[in-house]
């Protein structure tokens, strides 16, 4: 879960200081480049470049692994399937493409504060104003989503514990009902807190 939320690792590297917009644009360009690279040799070069970028960011090995870890089984499965239906070079390069794209995206989250991403998003969404949408609210939606992931994860743990305590861990209804009710209650409380913190002003 922490791979998605608050993954930011404080630091002073060049990557940390780069504006969020530049990093997002760079991410888009390099992911496109990854798709265009055909030979495994070129992709190996790209892999080396990604490793160098990580080294330059100084976020550490543990943080880097936390970014790629969630896709590890997917990568293994992809490699296996490609190996059966295509050949070794194709399998290696398509797997490498996916892993590198995930690693690069992870590097952006590791070196950029959510608030900086939000501010950038708000600027990019400024034209949405003409369609009657408030860019601030859209970016707030994004950060509330990020914030709610660990809260709902906690709720899941609590519901599971309560189920086990009552010996009904096999009932899907005993899981879904309290989870949905809990999520709705949280939404109510959050709405109240946003109003108290002056969001309606």
């Amino acid at each position: 879960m922490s791979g998605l939320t608050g993954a930011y690792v404080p630091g002073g590297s060049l990557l940390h200081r780069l504006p969020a917009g530049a990093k997002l644009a760079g991410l888009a360009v390099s992911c496109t480049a990854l798709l265009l690279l055909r030979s495994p040799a070129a992709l190996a070069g790209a892999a080396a470049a990604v490793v160098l970028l990580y080294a330059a960011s100084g976020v550490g090995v543990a943080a880097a692994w936390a970014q790629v870890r969630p896709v590890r089984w997917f990568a293994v499965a992809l490699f296996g399937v490609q190996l059966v239906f295509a050949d070794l070079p194709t399998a290696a390069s398509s797997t490498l493409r996916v892993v590198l794209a995930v690693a690069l995206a992870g590097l952006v989250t590791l070196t950029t504060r959510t608030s900086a991403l939000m501010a950038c998003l708000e600027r990019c969404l400024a034209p949405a104003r003409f369609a009657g949408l408030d860019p601030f609210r859209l970016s707030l939606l994004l950060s509330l989503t990020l914030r709610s992931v660990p809260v709902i994860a906690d709720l899941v743990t609590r519901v599971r514990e309560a189920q086990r305590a009552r010996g009904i861990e096999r009932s899907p209804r005993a899981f879904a009902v309290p989870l949905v009710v809990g999520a709705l209650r949280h939404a109510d409380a959050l709405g109240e807190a946003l109003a108290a913190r002056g969001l309606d002003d």
Partner: protein
Amino acid sequence: MIRLEDVHVRLGQREVLRGVTASLTERRVGVVGANGSGKSTLARLVNGLVLPSSGTVTVSGLDTRRHAARIRRGVGFVFTDPDAQIVMPTVAEDVAFSLRRKGLTREEVERRVREVLERYGLGEHADHPAHHLSGGQKQLLALCSVLVLEPEILVMDEPTTLLDLRHSRQVAALLRTLPQQVVVVTHDLPMLEDFDRVLVIDEGRIVADAEPAAAIGHYRKMMA
């Protein structure tokens, strides 16, 4: 200065408050009462989160019905569950969120955020994800995000209910140092001992209103 005049609040079929009249001028006001007695609703009336069904609530002379937004700028509110109150993923960002419409420069926002986090012992957690904090630290963060706006009045709805003894003592000690007028709804009776005034609510009415020893004594007898 908070004034309630013959306030009734109906939520659906239930009459939660039935004719509450009080004017709160003391610096430290406590509110106690059984679960469901209407004390949380009373707290929410003060910043216009709940509006009276009849009667009026005024804060510094402003009616909460007409000036809710303006009143909320002067009244900070701390909820029981800090998880609902923390809206940003990391500690410093959540405090900075409070300052977003103050028209301050980025440096000034950072300075104020750092200062308030240092003062309440969260300085080293500035860049940590909010969900990595302990329950007590989360409540302190919620408090920091409110206090950074320097409100004139602070309303707290059971701020120590989810905290351990050490953290609830820390919050209680902190309350003593605040320059603001503070209204605290709580079950934590020792915290109220040095307050200026304590209200006891039962079934939507004020049944006792006195200095702490007398009011808490009445409440204990009532609950026996």
